[in-house]
């Protein structure tokens, strides 16, 4: 399972580009395949992505940190992409409410606009790059604090502190955006 091979380090963005296609396809196909199965967890998607890439590209990952960072970025991109598509359809004016028993019911608690979040994260990353990475790994790669710590080479306590700070920062940014 080792991906550690130092010869061909790549830039996170290169990897992200490669992952993007994979993730988009996987995310799309995961929709509705399970009611609440693992395939919908971001970790699951990241994992599947890894499996798929690992087949041909097993030795190209310099380390776990880079891989997960790349995955998180790609996942973020997938979500943004879909959100933009939805917005485009909205603007097209063909939005009609459907009454279908099994239709994906909107979760009341989750009104978060992916695009707004993305924008806020860009802002956060400018002043607090490490805290932004924590958020990205947490949101888009589904990793826990314990998992994030070794990837960023910081302690779980620091991860926790970064998260608390980033959360407050993002809430402020999102509310400022709404106003």
């Amino acid at each position, binding site marked *: 399972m080792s991906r550690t091979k130092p010869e061909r380090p790549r830039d996170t963005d290169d990897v992200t580009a490669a992952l993007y296609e994979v993730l988009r396809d996987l995310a799309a196909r995961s929709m509705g395949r399970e009611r609440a199965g693992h395939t919908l967890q971001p970790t699951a998607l990241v994992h599947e992505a890894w*499996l798929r890439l690992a087949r041909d590209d097993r030795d190209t990952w310099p380390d776990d940190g880079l891989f997960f960072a790349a995955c998180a970025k790609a996942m973020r991109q997938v979500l943004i992409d879909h959100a933009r598509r939805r917005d485009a359809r909205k603007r097209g004016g063909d939005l009609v409410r459907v009454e279908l028993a099994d239709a994906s019911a909107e979760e009341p608690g989750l009104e978060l606009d992916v695009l707004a979040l993305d924008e806020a994260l860009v802002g956060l990353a400018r002043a607090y790059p490490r805290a932004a990475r924590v958020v990205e790994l947490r949101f888009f790669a589904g990793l826990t604090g314990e998992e994030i710590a070794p990837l960023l080479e910081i302690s779980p306590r620091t991860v926790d502190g970064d998260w608390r700070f980033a959360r407050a920062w993002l809430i402020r940014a999102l509310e400022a955006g709404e106003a």
Partner: protein
Amino acid sequence: MSRADAVQALFARALGAEAAERARLLAAEPDEDVRAECEELLRCAEREEHPLDAWTVEPDRLRSALEASLGPWPDPPPEKVGPYAIRGLLGAGSMSTVFLGERAHPRGDVAVKVLKPWLAGGEALRRFELEVELLSRLDHPRIARILDAGRADFGAAPHPYLVLEFVRGRPLDAWVEAERPPRRERLRLFNAVCAGVAHAHQKGVVHRDLKPSNVLVDERGEPHLVDFGVARAAGEDLRAASLLTSMGQIVGTLEYMSPEQAAGRSDEIDTRADVYALGVLLQELLTGRRPIEFEGRPLPECLRRIAEEEPAPLGQVDRTLAGDLETIVRKALEKDRARRYATVQELAGDVERFLANEPITARPPSSIYLARKYVRRHPAVAAAAGVGALALVATAVGVSLGWREARAQGRLAEERLAAAEAAREESDRVAAVLAGVIRAPQASAQGRDVLLRDVVLELGDDIREHLPDHPRGRGQLGFFVAQSLSTLGEPTRALERVEASLADMEKAGMLREPIGYDARRLRASLLGQMGRAAESRDAVKELLAEGEPRYGAEDERVLGLLLDLGTALVNVPDLAAAENVFEDALAKHARVFGGADPRTLQAKVAFAGLRLSQGRFDAVIAELSDAWPLLRAAHADEPHRMKTAIGHLSEALTATGELERALALRREQVEICEAAFGPDQYHTWDARMDLAGTLMTLGRFGEVQELSSAVLEWARANLDASHPMVIGSLSSLGSCHLIYDRFEESEASYREAIKLAELHYPSGDLRITTLRLRTAEVAIYQAKGAEAKALLEPLMAELDPRDPAQRSTFFRVRNCLGKAHLILGETDRGVELIEAAVADRVEAEGMASPYSVIGALDASDSFGRSGLYPEALAILGPFEEPLAELAKTSAVHLELATAMALQRGLIHVRAEEPAEAKAALARAEELAAGLEQPIADDVEDAFQLLRTGLEEARAHR
């Protein structure tokens, strides 16, 4: 510090602080911007249940987010797809949406599956078309049929759809949860699913995503397979194969995913991937749980676990599933698909056979295969018990590596290379034997964690079979096997093996090599363990004479042999010689290795064995207690090697009355073994057995009985029928029964122990003799004189009173035989034997020995019971004066003197001599007043008996 850092730092400190402290921190901040931003952020931090929190790994929320971002499709649903009227949504497939549709002719419900538009180009479309093609090959009542396929307009472009038979039913897991069918019904249902999958396989279709939600159970309880969305064609369908390779293989649900799927080895995915998924399904059907649960685990971990984790055997999840069903599930879930059922029919066939109570075809895996898995999970056990098994592998690999290295360096002279080459060939052979054992099916290791002992034995058998022309390899392997057996408490078998191995080594000219020397040393030590002390001593002496000049007087081997010699001398016994040897050995160990070295500590332990035999208990306690922390540390990974040390120390503690400490020691050992090996391994049970022994000396027979029963049950289930542990636990159960006057049970336990001991130990072994003696004692308690006599007479002939090791047993046998004669009314012979037994013991151990006194008390009791009052009093006479003298200084003798006065009194009561009885009672009371410890129960009883007897006598008069 940058401004940003200042903000974050202040935020961190203030967030965790109380209100007052927070205010103080903020007020102290000189930079107003920093303070203002921080205050604002702190306010935001107070916000609870913000949508941001939902971005953690909550799948439902993420799903909504993702689905919201993808948008529903089609939106709104169409009224018609082709000729089918749409009535509602059934669900969203992996690439498609499934609607409930209505067909006009013939009228009925159908399922209409439509590809999502953003996937309608390229690979996804081809996959959709492939599904249509694969489904149209299939025609089976257990598979939802394809009815139609086509293209329909959805505003923009023509869009592919397919129409399937609509199954009105519930997913398998939900159905089972609601209906709770009995086990046979579940198995029948499972086989119906298998029938559908088998049909697909016959048509060259692998489902690849079998799971409960893809099996719908209709109202009649019949299952239907649905969703062939990720199915692939097996075999020669090149078009499908190439298509799917480029699509990537990671489809399917993790819990049901075979290791080859999880590893993305697409070329290996065949019908056996479905067999694996069916195995998971079967376990879930039977237990409600999947073999490996991933709930909430990070996915890289899940992947690793699919590849590596051995699921718990079914029998451990549910005891009633041990046996055939466990074997069936295990075979379906093999990590290596070559070990799985080759076809679904074979799997279903075994389930069928199970239902019909016929033998199944799957065999439980061979024990060494299980052992290898076990060793991987429990490295401590491997270190402890697997000496042989691991050494074997090490030999094979080591020799092979050595050869490779030699080759690579290319510096070796020709002849040395030739020698290395020969060694390599040998190691290949060894490896071949190992591989053979690993592959060999073996029926005995049903489900349980395999005992390394089984592996070792299996290995032993294979050596003889597979290395007929290689005495060197055979000798080597045989030695390792013998070593393991010795560690595992089987000296008899170990001795057999090492002797066979030595014969091989002799043929191969290895006896003078270090390994030959070690094998001979093992044999010598085993001889000692088998009670053949003199032979052991001679063998060790021979080895020392040979080894000292060869290896030097301070060689580790030679020093170890000195300890062996000392121990052999203790057993002979020749304590004076042993003392010299040990003193020399201990000094050398300390000098060569240092005082804290494990080898020096072992020397101390061996020395303590001598001190114990000398009765110098305080020395044993002092020396071992001193070394204890070091001993524990040295054997942290191999706690079973503390066995001897714990044995010595607790025996000494018992002898000096520190029973609770001895008990604590035994209990601690059980706990340590449990932690190191697990609750169910040999050494742990061995420690429990020792604990039972100590409990016995404490008179806690209830606990002994409980523990011994458990030991017996485990040993019977896991070890050879005649393993020493079986014999030992039967024997202690026999003693417990005797204590509670359950004579029949006691006799039965002893008799069974004898039967097994006769199988295990060589004839004439002292352990068999002792068991026969105990059985005879039970007979005496029941006044079965003839029976006891029949048991004892052969023993009298067999035992040699001149052999110090047998002497004590001889006295007991003679005494017991005397009692038998008394019971049978053969008074003269009885008295003669008993008196001789007492005299013999006095001669051997002296008048002052507590054992001599107890022997006399016992004899007096025997005579008294037979009405031989003068004899009963006479036998006590010679002891009374020396005992009175000793009682002034020794508590033990004071107690014995009290007991003896009581015994005298009791005889006088029976002989109707009340005046003498009264005098004896007064004497006993006088003695008892000097006792510091409370009077033992049986002495108290004797007092009671005597007082009552006197009162009765008075009343009688």
